């Protein structure tokens, strides 16, 4: 019976996440369109509302081309590694009090572990395609993800110290019972580092060098087509959703809000996650791309020292007043 309930939960969460991925693409095109004084997609359905379905059908029925010199096994496995590692991270996210597929004690570490696996999918996709552009894109991406993962992990150590737990539900509850209600205020440095690392970790503008189209065509997924390309695309958007959820859970108090919304316990959670997704698009429409050496310098020389400083500061204040 318990197993059945877990299965139902998985199906619900999977369907909801996939629906969000579909409409995140539509939302992105609309938001960026309006920011650039265009309309965005308008043709398919009223205001282009059916566009994601049309895109999905197109990708599904498109011919799947595999380069003859590609390493076939690795070529098949790479998009799956990306998608599976992205989807498995959703399992530990608490959407509201008592609702997470797996409420485990090391939730935060589990998400790090899964997001570090995504770089395998990318680097192996680049290698197995046997093409210059793919390979360079893959190498860039994995170097970037490894560098920024350190900054991201360190930026969340402050949250762990304040909450005294790695369990995501406990972190939210600890925030609600703290005097600030959200960790955004005492952990403002950590939050800043996290947000920058979050953009870099998901390979989004201004850190989207792995897929810099002006120099690398489409980066690591240049040689992929049809459904396999769609898998990478989905993994990227699921990654964005997970990072937004993590930011909401660790810094913005999860599902808690200024007042209870009757009947919709996940109202505030979704609202905050949508804000972060909007933030991604906002940044994309605003900022130009970093140069590669600037990106590495920012990660290693600014973000990591800042995150370490935040840990020391948090430790000192906690030992003095906490």
């Amino acid at each position: 019976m318990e197993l059945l309930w877990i299965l139902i939960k998985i199906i619900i969460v999977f369907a909801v996440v996939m629906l969000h991925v579909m409409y995140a693409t539509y939302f992105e095109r609309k938001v960026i369109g309006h920011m650039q004084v265009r309309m965005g997609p308008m043709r398919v359905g009223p205001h282009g509302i059916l566009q994601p379905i049309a895109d999905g059908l197109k990708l599904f029925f498109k011919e799947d081309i595999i380069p003859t010199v590609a390493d076939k096994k690795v070529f098949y496995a790479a998009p799956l590694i990306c998608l599976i590692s992205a989807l498995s991270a959703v399992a530990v996210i608490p959407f509201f009090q008592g609702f997470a597929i797996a409420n485990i004690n090391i939730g935060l570490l589990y998400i790090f572990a899964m997001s570090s696996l995504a770089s395998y999918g990318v680097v192996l996709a680049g290698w197995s395609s046997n093409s210059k552009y793919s390979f360079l894109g893959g190498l860039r991406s994995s170097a970037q993800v490894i560098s920024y993962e350190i900054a991201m992990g360190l930026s969340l150590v402050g949250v762990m110290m304040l909450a005294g737990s790695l369990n995501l539900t406990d972190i939210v509850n600890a925030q609600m019972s703290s005097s600030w209600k959200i960790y955004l205020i005492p952990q403002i440095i950590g939050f800043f580092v996290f947000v920058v690392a979050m953009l870099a970790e998901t390979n989004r503008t201004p850190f989207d060098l792995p897929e810099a189209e002006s120099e690398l065509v489409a980066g690591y997924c240049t040689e992929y087509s049809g459904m396999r390309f769609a898998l990478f695309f989905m993994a990227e958007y699921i990654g964005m959703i997970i990072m937004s959820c993590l930011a909401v859970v660790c810094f913005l108090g999860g599902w808690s809000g200024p007042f209870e919304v009757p009947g919709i316990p996940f109202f505030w959670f979704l609202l905050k996650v949508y804000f972060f997704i909007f933030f991604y698009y906002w940044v994309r429409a605003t900022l130009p791309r970093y140069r590669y050496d600037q990106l590495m310098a920012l990660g290693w020389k600014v973000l990591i020292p800042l995150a370490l400083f935040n840990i020391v500061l948090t430790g000192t204040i906690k030992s003095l007043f906490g």
Partner: protein
Amino acid sequence: MVQLLFFYFAFVVIALGLRIVTCKNPVHSVLLMLVLFFHMAGFYLLLNAEFLAAVQIIVYAGAILVLYLFVLFLVNLKEEVRMSPFIEKGKWLGIVGALALFVTFLRGVKSFTLGPHGTYTIEKVQQLTHTKAMGEAVYTTYILPFEIAGIILLVAVVGGLALAKREKKGA
């Protein structure tokens, strides 16, 4: 159930270990190694050591193995390199050494006792959560070995920097 899982993990780890050394393509070896690390993490989970399981994936799979991949890409060897052995009759030395090691392990297995040791029983670890239990042990009882390990790592970092850093010309 637990025993079934244990035998599954043990079987896969051994089979994959053999496959990794016999695999011709080094990138495939690395991929199989990734799967192996996951099964190692499975062992830790069976032992209620969830923190170690997560660290196993983050550190070994997420960082060290990716660096291996980088090295492989940089040296770009598609097929294995064949070399003549350093020591003549190395094969026989190897066999004797392996046998000696095997006997030592076999003798060593006898001194294992089953079940948890010391003050940390399964119930206590579960109640404290493994992360907290391990943190407490490392930062109180075992603080000295922990610091020594830290210094050894620091020496390695400084050594790496000293090797990688080039002297400036004319300085």
